[in-house]
């Protein structure tokens, strides 16, 4: 049997442009703005999730292609490409300018920051969208960025499916979860919960980028700038649209510094039950990532009862990560409601 050793999560340091080159791909993918790394010839070396989502291009089809010629011909201008080339021969660590990206599905006003790396063999472009507009009329042929379908024509004949944002999508039935859990229980039974929580957390970070990108396109706002009700509805709708179930959020125990999440008809829980203990570790991790982002704090999410155990719905409690030590003994007693957690935490004080 194998235990899973996962590093403790820490609050990420505030983003600093001079650190971007040292960031891992996973860290770049958690950023809510676009990041592109080009070599001196304009070849795309790195391309993060937010940029792919907002440009509606598949990273796999973008990497190694020439950015100015193949991916964004609208940037093959003195004002953009010329500025990047001048940056390579200059000395300043940063440059910043505004530009209008032309896509066939719309124009995007952006602020571009160029970041130099010590070896000066590549440049990082940080792309912040500030305004979304309809496609501009009268552009020269081949000026606007190509659509994903033009980068990879006839891919649908090869079994490739895409969603509205042109991300490659894979339709799976819930037995995918069943098979995955059965595999883990066979090869590393004690590691399943930790693995699924970490997997959910990474997945949740990607979902946050998607939620933020959709909101940016629609309202030029961030999730933290939305009213609570609308933000919670958007999170729930995101999950429901993917067949995961329906979320409800319960803040009635705010005075105890905790709140609850209820998931009705969890696809995961139903797929991996029946079980004696909660099974939706994936959802725990997913919601940790979502609410870490919304609250800008490290939080802990724990499932109290699960449909895999025969309950009508899965119920989770959310608390500050700093209260984890106080929370764990309470959970070990098998409490099944957020109210019971609140009471036990109060009694323990």
């Amino acid at each position: 049997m194998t235990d899973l050793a996962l590093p403790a999560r820490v609050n990420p340091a505030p983003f600093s442009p001079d650190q971007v080159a040292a960031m891992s791909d996973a860290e770049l993918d958690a950023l809510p703005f676009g990041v592109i790394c080009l070599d001196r010839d304009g070849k795309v070396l790195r391309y993060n999730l937010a940029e792919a989502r907002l440009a509606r291009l598949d990273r796999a089809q973008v990497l190694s292609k020439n950015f100015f010629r193949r991916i964004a011909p609208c940037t093959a201008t003195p004002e953009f490409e010329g500025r990047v080339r001048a940056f390579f021969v200059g000395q300043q660590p940063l440059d910043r300018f505004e530009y209008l990206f032309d896509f066939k599905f719309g124009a995007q006003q952006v602020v571009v920051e160029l970041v130099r790396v010590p070896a000066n063999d590549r440049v990082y472009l940080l792309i912040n969208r500030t305004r979304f507009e309809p496609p501009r009329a009268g552009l020269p042929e081949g000026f606007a960025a190509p659509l994903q379908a033009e980068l990879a024509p006839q891919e649908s004949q090869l079994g490739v499916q895409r969603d509205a944002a042109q991300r490659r999508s894979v339709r799976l039935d819930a037995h995918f979860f069943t098979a995955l859990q059965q595999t883990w229980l066979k090869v590393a039974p004690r590691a399943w919960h930790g693995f699924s929580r970490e997997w959910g957390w990474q997945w949740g970070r990607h979902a946050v980028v998607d939620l933020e990108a959709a909101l940016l396109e629609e309202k030029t706002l961030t999730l933290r700038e939305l009213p609570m009700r609308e933000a919670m509805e958007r999170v729930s709708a995101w999950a429901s649209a993917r067949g995961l179930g329906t979320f409800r959020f319960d803040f009635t125990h705010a005075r105890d510094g905790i709140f609850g999440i209820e998931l009705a008809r969890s696809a995961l829980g139903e797929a991996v039950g029946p079980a004696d203990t909660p099974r939706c570790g994936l959802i725990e991790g997913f919601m940790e990532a979502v609410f870490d982002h919304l609250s800008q704090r490290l939080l802990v999410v724990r499932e109290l009862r699960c449909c895999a155990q025969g309950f009508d719905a899965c119920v989770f409690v959310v608390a500050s990560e700093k209260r984890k030590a106080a929370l764990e003994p309470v959970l070990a007693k098998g409490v099944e409601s957020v109210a019971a957690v609140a009471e036990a935490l109060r009694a323990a004080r």
Partner: protein
Amino acid sequence: MLPAEPLRSVCVGLLDERVLVQDYFDAFPWEPVPDADWTAEAFLQALE
């Protein structure tokens, strides 16, 4: 001053169009609050 007992409904009621995510979570009592210090008014003031 708001009565203490309907606090739960106050907290639920805050989930409306008035309170932004950043304000709600910035004011959220993440650390345990002694009962005597906890009032709906304090939470509302923190949100303002």
